[in-house]
């Protein structure tokens, strides 16, 4: 049943761009880019129980690394994805260091501080990043072929998302994933069972940051221009919102969260100056009525039907 659902979802994802126009292709690209961030944040927050409100910093590292390598060094875009992931991953390791000592609100503040510092460094580093003027970024390319339209870029994104999904799903099922879960539930109990807290924490931070970095590389290339305004605290908070709305503890939730972040401005546009109010009301509604996010909707619906039948 699960395999059929996965195949159907994959089929829909492949078929969708044939039914929407160029603007729809752009939105689909953004949804996939966000979904990758949601997957990474879901891993960190939902599985390992480590909070981060600094993921915009990892996103920025990925975006600028790729853009600089493509424009200034001439590295092929595909290769820059790996380097972006690597650089962001190393930054993730650094951020993991305070995570070994602090938890909860204090960890949130530490990750926020990291993000602000990164953005400030990028802003001030005029010669490399364009500083306050920002920088233009070429379209994504593969084997020298430039993906000029969002339609073609979407399929490359979809392929990378599929790889990321496989990675995350397998990790969650593996012994490493179980260790992360155990640490979230009780780090003392986990350590008693032989889980190395330091290694596990550093690993999950690095992996989460690396995935976010790859997403950032795509973000710059699809957008066509980078400036530090794209990596503010609001963006980090938006990421958190996305995983909570989608569903913190499931991969499906991450995908739904990505769709929510990309499409909600479209649905709310008609409400004009009421947009932010309605967005806020929706978030409060989700927290109260769907604490496990959109991913829990089918389960809840099923439960309702069973109760009625009973």
């Amino acid at each position: 049943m699960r395999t059929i659902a996965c195949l159907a979802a994959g089929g829909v994802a492949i078929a969708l761009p044939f039914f929407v126009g160029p603007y729809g292709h752009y939105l689909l690209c953004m949804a996939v880019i966000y979904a990758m961030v949601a997957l990474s944040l879901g891993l960190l927050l939902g599985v390992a129980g480590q909070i981060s409100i600094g993921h915009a910093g990892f996103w920025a590292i990925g975006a600028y690394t790729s853009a600089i390598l493509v424009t200034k060094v001439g590295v092929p875009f595909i290769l820059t994805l790996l380097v972006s992931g690597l650089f962001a991953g190393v930054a993730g390791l650094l951020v993991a260091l305070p995570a070994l000592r602090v938890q909860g609100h204090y960890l949130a503040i530490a990750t926020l501080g990291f993000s602000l510092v990164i953005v400030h460094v990028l802003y001030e580093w005029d010669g490399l990043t364009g500083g306050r003027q920002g920088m233009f970024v070429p379209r994504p390319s593969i084997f020298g072929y430039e993906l000029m339209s969002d339609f073609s870029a979407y399929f490359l994104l979809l392929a990378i998302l599929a790889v990321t999904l496989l990675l995350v799903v397998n990790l969650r099922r593996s012994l490493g994933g179980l260790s992360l879960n155990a640490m979230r539930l009780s780090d003392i109990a986990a350590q008693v069972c032989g889980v190395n807290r330091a290694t596990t924490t550093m690993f999950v931070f690095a992996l989460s940051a690396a995935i976010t970095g790859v997403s950032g590389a795509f973000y710059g290339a699809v957008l066509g221009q980078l400036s530090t305004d794209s990596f503010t605290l609001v963006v980090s908070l938006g990421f958190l919102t996305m995983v909570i709305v989608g569903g913190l503890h499931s991969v499906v939730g991450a995908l739904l969260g990505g769709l929510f972040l990309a499409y909600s401005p479209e649905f709310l546009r008609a409400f004009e100056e009421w947009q932010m109010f309605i967005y806020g009301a929706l978030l409060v509604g989700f927290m109260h009525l769907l604490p496990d996010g959109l991913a829990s909707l089918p389960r809840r619906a099923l439960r309702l039907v069973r109760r009625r039948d009973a």
Partner: protein
Amino acid sequence: MKTIRLSTLIGALVIAAPAFAGDPGVTDDTIEVGSILPLQSGLSAGASQYRDGIDAYLKWVNKNGGVNGRKIIVHFENDSYNPQQAVAAAKKLVDRDGVFAIVGTLGTTNTVAMIPHLANRGVPLIGPLGSHPSINTPTERIVFPISPLGTSHGISLAKYAAEELGAKTLAVFYQDDQYGKEILQGVEEYAEENGLEVVGEASYVPSDVDVSAQALSLRDTNPDAVVMAVIPKHGALFMLEAQKLGWDAKFLAPQLMSDKVSLDLGGSALNGLIINLYSAHETMDTEAVAEAKEAMAEFAPDTAPGYWPFMGMSGAKLFVTALRNVEGEPTREKLMDALEALGTYDSGIIPPVTYAPEKHAGPTVFGYAEVIDGEKGEVKVLKHWAD
């Protein structure tokens, strides 16, 4: 027989096709354009007035018969001063709604972010208001700026201080971003070339709520004049601090500092402030200003004529002027040709812009005005840019 009919039909369609192949957004009786503004952001107060300026002018044009028989319809999109949302809005307007041109954007990073997509689609961007080389000295043919370079602001203010106020030493209070630093750079350039001395510099960031330390430190440098590269809130705070300190230097700032928000915040502390004018002031007695005020009174009666609506209106006016000069069916290419044929053009709403095939430049000359009574909102024009 069937083959002949089919061939005739295909032939007719091929011949007729060019007659129907107009650019997007153009019908027999309308032309649809888009405008992308930060209507929900820190700039929303200015953006909504900017929108009202565009809207009122285009409605006024429509009321007077439109352009060559076509009414102009404008679609406004909000970008929340966010580059990503700006690109989304540009893609929506161009790829989904099919607008003919973008008339009016506000903000730097958001406008810069949308330029690659508009250039890729060949969509003219008329009237972007921001401070970036890609906007003010564009290399993309589609961009037709209405705002001066940030450095030109600095030069104009330093020049006025030196030539009209006899200042020998200057201090600069600036916002620590692209906008503020470009003005600072202009002041430094002018000072170096003309033997003036910049004796003090102090900056703030937009989130600051207190600028008393900056006022104190600059007062201690004892400059003849202080150039402010500021937005209304911080400019007003700085002037209030200067008033508290009894600091009697001459203060100069860009035109933003004479808008209603600044005057309401600063009150009498703004008295004597010199501002450079890069849009018309509502007290100017010219035909263009009278026409602009008439349009505002009729179609945006709740918005007072002034800097923001006039800046918005200027882009719309350039668009309409060029569109009127287009012969035959309007296309984006013909519109850009018509804009480039304007040469140095004075709309009367902003100082002259220069659009030619090899150069698209915003204004380079300025007028000047002085705040006479900040509490009453009284501002006196000292010099029109045409004088």
